[in-house]
Structures are given as structure tokens and as C-alpha cells.
């Protein structure tokens, strides 16, 4: 058995968080479950030795995106209004679930038949230091880094413009604006 105990625990936590996020009735609960899933994933990354990616995942997804989602829920009155209708087995919903199941089946099939996945033995965890990641970002991947920076700026401005209220005389909706800046 190649998988460690901690991996199993974290995987179950992640998947359970995901399932809860996609099935709970109240949107805020969904968002909190989503946070659990994100945090589990971050822990998975740490478990796999990707320290920086894990911490970045934690910082961005738990610290920023989850808060964004929560704010969006409150601003669209999803937090206090009536809970979204439960899973009445509507044809569309069933079709969606079936499609997702099919996708999962195909993916599992792919993993099972993949020679790469079968051959990938457990190698020793690569020792990557922050210093190496920093050099990689600043030397080999400096152009993508700049592009990402530009894209983030564009997204920031775009989000602010989108979230601004159309009428000028209304009191400024500070929170949405700030969320945009934060991201």
C-alpha cells in the first residue's frame, strides 16, 4: 500500500468537504464546507512536499476566495433568505449528476489503464527550498510571473468596475470594491 495514513485522512477530508459544499442547503454552509475542502487540499499539498503551494493555497483560497464567496453570498442575500430548494429530482439535476458520474467513470478508467500511474513508484520527497522556488520564479519563469502580475492588475480593475454601483450618488459599496482589490 503506497498511500500513507495521513494522505488518506486528508483525502477523505477534502472529498467530504467537497461533497458537503456541493450538497448542503444553506449557501453559507456550502461556503464553509468549501473552506474545509480547500484547507484539506492545502494540507494534501503539504503532505506531498509542496510546502509553498500548500501555503499559497491556504492564503489565497481560505484567506481570500472563501471570504469573497461569503461576501458574495451575503450581498446577493443568499445568506439570510430561504435556503435553496433541496434536491428535488428535477430532470436537469439528474442529467447533471449522471454526466458527472460518467466523467468520473471515464477518468477512473483512464487512471486505471494509464501506464504512467501504474509505474509511478513512491520516490523520496524532493527537497525544494523556498530559495529554489524564488530563483525559478525570478529567472526561468520571470516572464509568466510578469504576465500573471499584469493579469491580476487587469482582473482587479475589472472586478472593481463590475462591482461598482451604476449610480454615482448612492453610498459607495465599499466591501465589494475591497474584495476586488484584495484578489
Amino acid at each position: 500500500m503506497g498511500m500513507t495514513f495521513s494522505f488518506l485522512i486528508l483525502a477523505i477530508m477534502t472529498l467530504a468537504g467537497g461533497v458537503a459544499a456541493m450538497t448542503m442547503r444553506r449557501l453559507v454552509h456550502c461556503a464553509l464546507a468549501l473552506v474545509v475542502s480547500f484547507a484539506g487540499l492545502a494540507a494534501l499539498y503539504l503532505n506531498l512536499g509542496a510546502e509553498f503551494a500548500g501555503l499559497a493555497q491556504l492564503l489565497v483560497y481560505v484567506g481570500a476566495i472563501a471570504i469573497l464567496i461569503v461576501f458574495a453570498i451575503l450581498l446577493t442575500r443568499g445568506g439570510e433568505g430561504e435556503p435553496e430548494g433541496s434536491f428535488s429530482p428535477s430532470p436537469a439535476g439528474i442529467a447533471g449528476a449522471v454526466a458527472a458520474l460518467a466523467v468520473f467513470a471515464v477518468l477512473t478508467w483512464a487512471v486505471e489503464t494509464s501506464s504512467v500511474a501504474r509505474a509511478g513508484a513512491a520516490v523520496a520527497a524532493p527537497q525544494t527550498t523556498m530559495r529554489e522556488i524564488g530563483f525559478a520564479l525570478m529567472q526561468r519563469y520571470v516572464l509568466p510571473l510578469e504576465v500573471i502580475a499584469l493579469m491580476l492588475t487587469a482582473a482587479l480593475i475589472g472586478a472593481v468596475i463590475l462591482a461598482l454601483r451604476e449610480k454615482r450618488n448612492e453610498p459607495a459599496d465599499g466591501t465589494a470594491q475591497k474584495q476586488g482589490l484584495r484578489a
Partner: protein
Amino acid sequence: MISAGAVDQVFVTLKDWIVFHTPAPLQTLVSIVIEVATIIVVFAALFALTTVFERKGLGRMQNRYGPNRVGPFGVFQPIADAVKSLTKEDVVPRAADHVVHYLAPLVLVGVVFLTYAVLPVGRNMTAVNLDAGVLYFFAVGAATELAVFMAGWSSHNKYSLLGAMRAIAQMISYEIPLILSSVPVIMMAGTLSMVGIVEQQARTSGGLAHWNVFTPWGLAGFILFMIAATAETNRSPFDLPEGESEIIAGYFIEYSGFKFALFFLAEYLEMFAVSGLGITLFLGGWSAPFSFLGWIPSWIWFFGKLLTLIFGFIWVRGTVPRLRMDQLMNFAWKFMLPMTLIVIFSAGLWRFLSAAVVGPMPLGGVIRWLVCALVILAPYITLARGLERGRRIEKRVYRYAE
């Protein structure tokens, strides 16, 4: 005769001794338990000490005694408080979301305690020496916002929701200057590891330690960091989220008894943690400022600095009035953010102006210091002028108070 080094490492030695005497399979577990337990006990005790310290300090500032009934000079007051909060009824509003309501204080306290894992409280006294320690600190710290939201939303009370929203907006806004003001330190140290950062500052030359606060960018960064930290921990004058006169107590309005005490604890722990980070980044961590003071144990240095900063927090709380929401936001986005960027630039300049550029040490060092200070001061003055323009400062009129 016990050497200074032995006193310095007394706790480390003790732990090693205990671990050495446990069975081999349990050694890792015991080591972790010892570390966690120590952190919890020490900082909880510090919390207890600080509450009374703060109440008495504030009392002196406001010309009154503060608590002085329980024990000599009231030092046992925290114990009385603890007994009170433990024995009080735990009231949960009927409309509240029970699970989330229950989880929120636990998450908050847990998350805050997690940040202590990477704090070097003394030489060789770090629970986990993470390579990305600073990043870990911020990443874990980001989760506190979520806990605050959970508390505010689950209570189903408009004041608590408002307080939570305020708190999250404020924490997010000030998290950016907080992180950005620590960037220069990371830049100069070349590492994200807290232990590495402290060790670099512990070096001395000419009897003076290399504390970051002694450089212009470090000084400015420290000031900005502490302002952002005050806001981040919802301390006065940035205590809008709990603003008693407006929204009663903010997001933990519907908590009582032990849960309330947990929020209280978390708040103070957060303050200690962020002060500890400030000490680590700017004030040389556990190192002594002058080499001849090196005989004093490192943990005494750390906790001495921590208490000093805490006193600073208390002093500020006793002096400065609360801000308005728009002032708060304007201050964060229009002043703090640009200033932190300028400090980063100044740090880069500091690195560039090495001895090869400005000349040999005594004079060159002074030139380097002055140039970098000027790079920060000139934009600061312009920025401050620009922000003040068109704003009239008048005597405040209390229309209904008199």
C-alpha cells in the same frame, strides 16, 4: 556556577531530557505534546497577566485604580474572571445556527494558536522551523477572518453581522500593508524562515546588533507594521468591529460564558502573535541589541520585548479615539499601501548602496542611511500633504453632549 549559555538553553535541555527518557516509539509524539502544551500554557498565562496589566494600566491612565480587590493589588483578578466565565450559563440564541455558532470560537482560538508554531521565542526555541515560516504565519492567520465571519453570521443578529463585516473588511484591508511591510525584511534576509531572519539580526558589528529597525526602511517598516498590526488585531483606535458605543460588541455579541472568554483569549493571543512576528522581523527576535548584553537569556529578551509592545498597545488604547469607517479605509488604501511600497523601494535602494557605491563604512554608512531615509521621508511628506489638502480640521463640536 551556571553559565549564561546553560540558563539560555535551560528549557531546551529540559525538553530533550524528558524526550530522551520516553520509549522510542512515543518520542515524536511526546516532543510535539510538550511543545504544544508549553505554548498553550505560557501564552494563556501571559493572557491572564495581560488582562490585569491592561486594566490596571488603563485605570492609571484614566485616573482610577483598576481592579484591586482580588489578591494583593488585584493580581488574582484573572482567576476570578475565569471562574466567573466558566460558571456562567452558556446562552445560545434560538435563531442561531448552532453548529457554526459553536465552532466559531474554537476555530478562532485554534487558528491563532497554530501561528505560534513558527515563532522563535528564544534561541533554539521554535516549535517548527518551517522554511516558509513567514508565509505560514500569514496563511494560517488568514483563517481568523473566516472564524470571525462564522461567529458574526451564525448569531443571526444584525449587530454581530455588521461587526463581522466590519472586522473582515478591516482585516483584509490591513493584511495587505501588514504583509507588504514585512516584504523588505524578507528581501534583505533572503529567507522566509523566521529562525533565519532572527539569526541574521543577531549578528553584531561594533557591539551593535543588526536589527532591522536600525535601518531607515526597517524603522519605517516597523512603524507601518505596528499600525497594520493594531488594525489587524482590532485594537483601539481600530476597534470598530466591536465598537461598544455603536454595535455593542460586534461579532461576539451573542456569546456568553466560556465561549466569550475564548474570543477574548483569541483576541489577546492574536495580539501577542503579531507582536511576536514584529519582534522577529524588526526587533531582532530573541537577540540582544548590544553584544555586552548577550549574557541575558534569549527568552527573557523575547518576552521583554513582547511586554514592551503590549504596553505600547495599551498605551495607544488609552490615548487615541476610535476612527470612522471611511477614515479607516482611506488610511489603509491611500496611505499605508503606498507607503509600504515606498519602503520596499527604499530597501532595494539600501541593498544597492553597498559600500562599493557610497564609500567606506563610517561616512558611507551615514550617507546610505540618509539617502534611504530621504527616499521614504520625501514621499511621506508629499503623500501626507496631498491627503490633508482640502480637509479642514476644526474644533469638534458636541452638539448633544452639552
